[in-house]
């Protein structure tokens, strides 16, 4: 990191690093509620980072994005998830398919991959946030990994939402955010998706008495 970097860029890089760190923390987390909290924290960091970008670049619509992020990712979705966990009586312990150290190792490899892939592109970018594109990709990949390794429906969903965070980070970092219509649309989709998920959880729970996705392995080729 260059010393002559403006403060805003340093801040953004810091926030991005925090997001990546949180992604790792989520990957390593064994408890559902903590996981949701970490997710909320990630949303909050994302919101802050967006605010910094908005402030620095003067892009007005980014304030809206930041607000939306705060509302949706940091408050509403975590709240819904909390409610669900409570209502559905989810066991707080998360069972992973692969043990956590191994997952972490794979995660580190993924970060390397992501940085490598993003490097030639970041160099093309003129934005102050260009360094964070690799981080965004890494967050997406880590969330993907989390979805693969976790056995609970709810953790998969958190992974999925965390992936959205990564995407959002990418959008702000590479291009100062997508056009407003699109942002709104995406937010709406995420919200509806979350609601449908909630409905789903109840249905799954009703059907299987559990949210463990191991029950969802009946459909296959025999």
């Amino acid at each position, binding site marked *: 990191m260059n010393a002559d970097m403006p403060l805003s860029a340093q801040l953004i890089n810091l926030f991005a690093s925090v997001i990546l760190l949180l992604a790792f923390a989520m990957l390593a987390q064994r408890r559902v509620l903590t996981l949701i909290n970490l997710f909320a924290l990630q949303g909050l960091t994302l919101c802050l980072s967006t605010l910094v970008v908005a402030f620095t670049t003067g892009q007005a619509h980014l304030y809206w994005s930041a607000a939306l992020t705060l509302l949706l990712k940091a408050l509403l979705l975590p709240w819904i998830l909390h409610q669900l966990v409570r209502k559905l009586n989810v066991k707080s312990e998360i069972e992973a398919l692969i043990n956590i150290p191994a997952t972490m190792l794979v995660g580190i490899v*993924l970060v390397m*991959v992501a940085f490598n892939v993003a490097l030639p592109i970041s160099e093309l970018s003129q934005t102050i946030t260009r360094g964070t594109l690799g981080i965004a990709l890494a967050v997406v990949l880590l969330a*993907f990994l989390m*979805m693969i*390794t976790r056995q609970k429906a709810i953790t998969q969903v958190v992974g999925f939402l965390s992936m959205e965070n990564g995407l959002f980070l990418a959008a702000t970092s590479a291009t100062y955010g997508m056009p407003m219509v699109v942002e709104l649309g995406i937010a709406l989709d995420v919200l509806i998706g979350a609601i449908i998920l909630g409905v789903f959880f109840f249905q799954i729970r009703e059907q299987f008495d559990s949210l463990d996705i191991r029950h969802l392995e009946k*459909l296959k080729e025999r």
Partner: protein
Amino acid sequence: MLTLLPIDVLLISACTWLAIGVTGLAAPHNLRFVGKFLFPLGALVGLLAGLTALEFLGASPEVAVLAIGLPNLPFHLRLDNLTAVFVLLLGFTTVGISIFAAGYFRKGEGTAPGLQCLQYHFFLASMLLVLLADDAYAFMVAWEGMALSSFFLVTADHRHAEIRRAGYLYLLIAHVGAIAILLSFGVMTSGSGDYTFDGMRAQAHTPFWASLAYLLALAGFGAKAGLLPLHVWLPEAHPAAPSPVSAMMSGVMLKTAIYGLLRVSFDLAGAPQWWWGVVAMGIGLATAVFGVLYSAVQSDMKRLLAYSSIENIGLLAVGLGLTLIFHSYGMEILAALTLTAVFYHCLAHAVFKSLLFLCTGSVLHATRERSLGKLGGLIHRMPWVAWLALVGVIASAGLPPLSGFVSEWLLLQGFLFSPGLPHPWLNMVVPVAAAVVALVAALAGFAMVKFFGIVFLGQMREPALKDARDAGPWERVGLVWLAGLTLLLGVLPSTVIGLIDAATRQLLGTGLADKVDAHSWWMLAPISPARASYEPLIFLATIVAAALIGRALVRRLYHGRMRRTPAWDCGYIFRGPRAQDTAEGFSQPIRRIFEPMFRMERHFPTSRDAQPYYSVKVGDRFWYWLYLPLVRLVNGVSTLITGLQGGRIAIYLLYSFLTLIVLLLVARP
């Protein structure tokens, strides 16, 4: 001013057939309407098509482009002499079969008559279009339409699992063959993108690509014709189908494959290589031997005939191969000789095999029995069918003076004059091939004697056969038509060769007609009378005259008294119909001599059996050598691949994940 060219007439014929078929759908269960009106109408159209082709033969090609088809490839049609010969075959054979069919269909036998009428006439129309098609798309549409309609006809009585299985196998192999044909067309366009046949003719093919096209066509058309090893559908599908359909398939449809092969190897693929002929001849010989041996050991009369068709197709392939060899070495007279043999055998086989299949149809209707072991003595109850079948049997056995012999004779002449070939190795192979052909012809006689003897002669093996009734008037007319054609083809070879010579000239540039015409019309001497000649009419007349004079003299000089008694049978007390030779017994020598060729499952009775019995099942080795391993391979791969769908969502996500990672790391512009 409206002038109807022959090609228009043929097109109208095809459309009329389609229309007749659709009309059948209007009254699907009205047997009287469909049988007594639509089918005879179809026969008339067949006659029209046949006469048109007859009229056309010798004229210059006509083309037509229809407004249907693909946007950049509308249906191209073309009527040339090669097509005309096969239209002739289609038309005249159809007359007999359709008239027979008019009296054949019964209530409650499988698909409704009207629907069968649709499928049948669709089948006819598509065969006509196959012959007329002049671009790859039209050809493929007609070709697959033919396969499809005949598939539905084969499975008309789909309540039986084995019939369904036969239909499946048939359509599958037909489809695989169609794929090969399509590929062959693709190769022949040489990347020009022009899928009309004219476009293919215009290409200059390198030997490699031409050979590839030829081999693909051989595989594709061979699958339809029943060449080894793609023959397995044939003995299943032919018995399964209603008899007029078996007749149509065996008599006409198999010939369309020969047509395609001729079209590709002489017309489209460029100058033939000498080894093309060797390949065709080798496969043909193997097919012929295989067909005739299996034909001789069958216990089901329609299967027997089906295998006999395989044999005949094999002989046709041999003729084709020989023609290719001669043609590639520029020995055009000999090529013309063997090509004439091929055409002649196509015509002859179409007629006599239809005749025989129709006869089995009559027997089947009269007795509800296909197994040779339960038939016998039908000549007493069904004299019409029996005597007409005898005509077919003699022709099929390749005996003078009927049609089968003429083509065999021409083919053997071709073999005989082969030593002029510049290739020493070929010089050695060809006579051996001739020996095999001779063996096949002789074995065909064995199979045919078995067929006729067991079905029509002897005593009735089952009491129920006493109620068998002879064929009805429609069926008789159909049979007589075909038997008459067989006789005509047998005794008027020069005339017929004069007709088909236009096609020979078209493909080779040389014909036989001028040589044949140089002599009396009853004499067939394709090269010169000193080298070889055959006068079937004199031949027949001599035998008949000798027989009649002999009989008259004996009657005049002696007396004609006759008594009926029980059979003498070496003085043994008469032991009833069960003591007769069975179909299995009759073919025992063949099974024994050619044992390695068959895959036999036998059960011998022992002294401890409460109910001793003997049974033998003859299986096709190709199933075990080729088809079952292939099925196992596909199943194995399928099992491996279905492992992908293991039901775990995490694994599914992993697939996406890995795909992404791999693409990110590997894919670079």
